[in-house]
């Protein structure tokens, strides 16, 4: 077991059951049950209006659910929240903002932890500046510094890298990745590459409902039908006809150029067992057979469309 990793039997840090939130007649969340294992990074993805911010608001105690339960396995004071567009009193300096956060959640923590948090967020050059002139990206970095300064056990981050440039996003994702094992992180994002890069567990929300929850590997392999790309030198027609006759083949397309056949299959197991014999039986010249990569974007679009 890695240093700082939780014991395998430890309960999830966050568990919700049958969570429902209504705003008048609009149902923002419906029967949402998530489990965030301790010490992991959980990515919450979904299109605009899916209910991500509402869910984070309920978990952070800023909103009340209409029905359902929320169980946090950490004390409230060890939960840190970062809104998607953090704002602070503009006449405070960055260091004062982070120090205020420290004194509110960890008054006994040494003051030099403030500079450590500012450095970790990449704001050391602007620590003494008033935040009124900060860009949105700098405010997001400052919000992150104020979030980590109290050494929280659970971080709820709403789109923590949405306003950052590529380098800033990489820094923030690296920071989140470093927290794995010592803290539990739940963050929402529109940027699927970010989720794919750092998350152990993923939850997919659409229109207030949780469509998928599980490991990233499970999401990539279990929710979208596998596809294969076959390059045929000659005899494409025989290949297409033979594949269409197979019960495990769901779709056959020739949209990717001459001699290229793309097939969708019911399961990778069936395809890997039967495809080569079928292709060999056609007598066609086969240049290559390769599985199509399944990325989170494709899975996300298929799940949420």
């Amino acid at each position, binding site marked *: 077991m890695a240093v700082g990793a939780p014991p395998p039997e430890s309960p999830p840090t966050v568990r919700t059951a049958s969570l429902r939130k209504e705003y008048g007649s609009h149902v923002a969340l419906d029967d949402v049950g998530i489990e965030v294992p301790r010490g992991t990074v959980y990515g919450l993805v979904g299109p605009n209006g899916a209910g991500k911010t509402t869910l984070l*608001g309920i978990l*952070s*105690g*800023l*909103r*009340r659910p209409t029905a359902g339960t929320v169980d946090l396995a950490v004390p*409230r*004071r060890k*939960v*840190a*929240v970062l*809104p998607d*567009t*953090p*704002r*602070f*009193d503009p*006449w*405070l300096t960055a260091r*004062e903002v982070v*120090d*205020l*956060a*420290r*004194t*509110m*959640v960890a008054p006994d923590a040494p003051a030099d932890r403030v500079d450590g948090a500012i450095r970790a967020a990449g704001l050391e050059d602007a620590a003494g500046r008033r935040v009124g002139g900060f860009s949105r990206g700098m405010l997001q970095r400052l919000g992150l510094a*104020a979030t980590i300064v*109290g050494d929280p056990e659970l971080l709820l981050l709403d789109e923590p890298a949405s306003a950052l440039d590529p380098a800033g996003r990489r820094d923030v994702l690296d920071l989140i990745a470093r927290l794995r094992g010592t803290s539990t992180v739940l963050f929402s994002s529109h940027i699927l590459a970010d989720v794919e890069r750092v998350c152990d567990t993923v939850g997919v929300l659409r229109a207030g409902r949780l469509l998928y929850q599980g490991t990233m590997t499970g999401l990539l392999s279990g929710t979208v039908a596998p596809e294969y790309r076959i390059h045929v030198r000659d005899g494409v027609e025989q290949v297409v006809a033979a594949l269409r006759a197979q019960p495990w083949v769901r779709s056959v397309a020739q949209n990717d150029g001459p001699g290229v056949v793309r097939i969708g299959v019911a399961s990778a197991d069936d395809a890997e067992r039967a495809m080569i014999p079928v292709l060999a039986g056609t007598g066609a010249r086969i240049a290559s057979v390769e599985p199509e990569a399944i990325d989170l974007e494709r899975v996300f679009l298929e799940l949420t469309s």
Partner: protein
Amino acid sequence: MTLWRLEWLRLLRTRRWIALAAVYLFFGLTGPPLARYASDILRRFGSGNLQITIPPAVPADGISNYIKNASQIGLVVVVVVAAGALTFDARPEIGAFLRTRTDSLWRILAPRFWVSAVAAAGAFLAGSLAAWYETVVLIGRLSTGAMLAGMAFGVIYLAFAVAVVALSAAIARGTLAVVMLSLAILIALPIAGLVRGVGPWMPSELVGALDALARGAHAADYLRATSTALLGGALALWFAVRLAARREL
């Protein structure tokens, strides 16, 4: 950086203290001279056909001039300054920053209430002392006991007014809405005091206490209003915490 220092810096760096001090000091410094030289001023600006006769100024007139002006404009400034501090949910991101870092809303509210109230009281006392000094120099002596008691009643009223702003900030969210609601409540109180027998109990009675005491009224006449202001202020703060805790961001 504590929440108390945060409020102190808010007063200093946003220069709100200047607005408070300027209003009360201005009326404190100009009230007694206007009372002393009112007849001269009117004579200079009046026409030859109209003659206005004003009786010679007495010491209480200097304080009266100060209270009449400062109690209205000063109260508006106090409400605006207090609303700026107490409407921490007006910007939900700031509200979220504060609320998610404490289990108790009172911990957020208390420094905002006390610093606003102390600043308002300080400005009022500075203006009162200026008016007192100028009155003594220009018109005549005032009873020290009456002045101290009157200033204490004024301070209690301003603390009550700030508590009303805290309650308004728990009901409304935007700063302008909170200012309007607070002023509506504070203006409604003296109107309610017109009901027979209710007036002496209204906290708004304390506004004119300094003036009345300078004219010879008894401090005991204001004990009922004082008790209502203290009780009402405490209740306003209690409800403010309860209502703010129920608010969703």
